[in-house]
C-alpha cells in the first residue's frame, strides 16, 4: 500500500501541474506588455499591470461585470425561492404524475441550448412584448431564462434535503397551531439553510458562467454579461492577448473565490442530487 501511495502522490503532482498550466499561462500572458507577447518563457518577467488596468478602466467592462452580478444573484435568489417552494410541494404532498414532472424537468436542462436560440430570440423580440417593453436585451429576460436551466437541479437538490427533514417536525408544529406558511418559514427554512446555501452558490456559478444565451438574447451594455465581454474581446483586440488574458482571469476570479465553499457539493449539484459528492 505504501508504494501505491507514493505512485499516487507522483501522479497527482504531475496532474496538478497539468491542471494549473493553462491558468498559469493565462496569468503570465496577462502580465506581458504588447511588444513582449511573442516571448515563450514560462515565467512572469515583471509585474506589469497595465493589461488589468486597461480592462478595469473600461466602463463597458465594468458595466458588464455589474450586469453579471445582478443577473447571477437575482437568478440564484429566485431559483432558491421557487425551488424551495416546489421541493416542499414535492416532498410533503402526494402529487399525481410526479415522475413525469421529473423527466420533463430533466429534458429542460439537458436539451442542447442551441436548439432554444432561435425560438427564444423570436419570442423575446416578437411575442413577449408589452407596449414599449420587450424581454429582448433585458436582465429580467436572462434571469427568467436561466431559471429554466437552474430550477430543475435546484428542485431535486432541495427535495433531497427536505426528504431528510423528519415529517414529525412539521406535524408537531401543526399540532401547535402553525399554518403551512409558518411551517415552511419557521421549521423547514432554518433546517434547509445549508442546502439552500449550496444551491445558491452553484446556481450563481452556472448563471455567471453562461454565455450562449447571454450573447443571443442581449445586445447593449445595459444587459450583457461578463462572459460575452470576453467573447467580444477576442476579436476586438486581435493580438492584444495580454488584455484578453487579464479579462479571462477577472471573469474566472469570482468562481475561483467561492470554489472552496462548494467544492464538496459540486458533484451533487451537477448530477441533480443523484450522487452525493
Amino acid at each position: 500500500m505504501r508504494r501505491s501511495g507514493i505512485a499516487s502522490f507522483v501522479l497527482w503532482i504531475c496532474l496538478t501541474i497539468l491542471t494549473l498550466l493553462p491558468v498559469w499561462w493565462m496569468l503570465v500572458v496577462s502580465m506581458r506588455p504588447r511588444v513582449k507577447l511573442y516571448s515563450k518563457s514560462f515565467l512572469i518577467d515583471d509585474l506589469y499591470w497595465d493589461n488589468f488596468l486597461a480592462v478595469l478602466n473600461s466602463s463597458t467592462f465594468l458595466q458588464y461585470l455589474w450586469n453579471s452580478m445582478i443577473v447571477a444573484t437575482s437568478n440564484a435568489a429566485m431559483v432558491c425561492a421557487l425551488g424551495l417552494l416546489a421541493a416542499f410541494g414535492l416532498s410533503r404532498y402526494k402529487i399525481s404524475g410526479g415522475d413525469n414532472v421529473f423527466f420533463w424537468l430533466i429534458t429542460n436542462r439537458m436539451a442542447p441550448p442551441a436548439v432554444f436560440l432561435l425560438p427564444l430570440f423570436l419570442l423575446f423580440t416578437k411575442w413577449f412584448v408589452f407596449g414599449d417593453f420587450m424581454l429582448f436585451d433585458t436582465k429580467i429576460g436572462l434571469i427568467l431564462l436561466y431559471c429554466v436551466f437552474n430550477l430543475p437541479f435546484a428542485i431535486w437538490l432541495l427535495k433531497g434535503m427536505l426528504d431528510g427533514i423528519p415529517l414529525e417536525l412539521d406535524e408537531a408544529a401543526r399540532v401547535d397551531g402553525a399554518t403551512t406558511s409558518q411551517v415552511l418559514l419557521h421549521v423547514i427554512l432554518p433546517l434547509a439553510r445549508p442546502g439552500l446555501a449550496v444551491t445558491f452558490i452553484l446556481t450563481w456559478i452556472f448563471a455567471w458562467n453562461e454565455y450562449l444565451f447571454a450573447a443571443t438574447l442581449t445586445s447593449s451594455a445595459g444587459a450583457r454579461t461578463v462572459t460575452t465581454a470576453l467573447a467580444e474581446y477576442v476579436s476586438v483586440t486581435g493580438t492584444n492577448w495580454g488584455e484578453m488574458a487579464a479579462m479571462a482571469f477577472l471573469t474566472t476570479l469570482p468562481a475561483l473565490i467561492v470554489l472552496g465553499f462548494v467544492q464538496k457539493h459540486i458533484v451533487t449539484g451537477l448530477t441533480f442530487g443523484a450522487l452525493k459528492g
Partner: protein
Amino acid sequence: MRQSNIGWLFLAPATLILFVIGFIPFIYILYVGFFDWNTNAVDPTLRWAGLQNYRSLVFDTTFLNSLTRTLVFAFFVVVSELLLGYVLARALMADRLWGRQFFRTIHTLPIVVAPIAVGATWRLLCVPGFGIVPYYLKLWFGIDYNIATNSYHAFATAIVMDLWHWTPFVTLSLMAGLTALPKEPLEQAQIDGGNKLQIFWYVIVPMLKPVLLTTVFIRLMDALRSVDEIWMLTKGGPAEATRFIGLHIWINVFPKTDYGYGAAMSLLTLYVTIVLSWLLFVAMTGRKGGAQ
C-alpha cells in the same frame, strides 16, 4: 402526505416559468420548421414549405457531418473521461496520500471556470505562432502542431480541452460512488482469490453501475451541448473540422438568418438528443443490474 391540490400550488410558480420559457419555444419552432423563412430573402415573410426543410436536412451533408462529428466527439470525451476519472479516483483514494485535500481542491478548479474562459485560455496556449504548446511540441518533440491547419490536431485539442475541463467532475463523482461501496463483497472476492481485473469487472463495475450511468448521462448530454469553448478555441475550424452541431445551428440561424431551416435543424437535433437520453434513461432505470 397531504392532498395533492395544495402541492400543485407550491409547484405552480416554478412550473409556470418552465412552461412559458422552456416549453412554448418548442411549439414555436415546430411551427416555424414548416416554413421557408429568411428575413434577408427577396420575400422576407413566412412561406409555407411543408416538410421541405426536413427533406433537405436528410441530404444536407454539412449538417449530417456536423452531427456525426458531435457524436464522435462526445463518444471520445465520455470514454476517456470515464477511464481517466476512474484511475484518478482510485489514486486520490490511495492510503497515505499526502496532501489529498490540496490535490482535490486544485483538481476541482477547472469545473467552476466559465466555458468561455476555458476556450480563451486554451486559445492562448494553442494558437499557432503565439502559444507555448505548438512552440514546445516543435522544440522538444519535433511535432508540427497547428490547430489552424490540421483537422486532427484541432479535433484532438478540443477533446483534450474537454478532458481538462470535465475529467475532475468524473473523478469526483466516481470517488463518491467508490466511497459508498460496501466493503464486504470486495473482501469476499479477495478471499475467493479473484485477480484485480476480475474483481474490477465482476464486483466493482456492477456495484458502481448507477453512479457510472448517471455520470455518463450527464457528461454525454454536456458534450453534445458544447459550443462556447470550441467557439473561442477554433471558431469551428480549421474549415469545418470542429464545427459541432450547436455552432452549426447558430451559424444558420444568425449570420445566415435562415429561420425556417434553422428551426427544422434544431428540432431534429433535439430529437436525436432525446432519443439518446431516453436510451440511457432506460439503461439507468429499466435494468435490474444495480439500480434500486
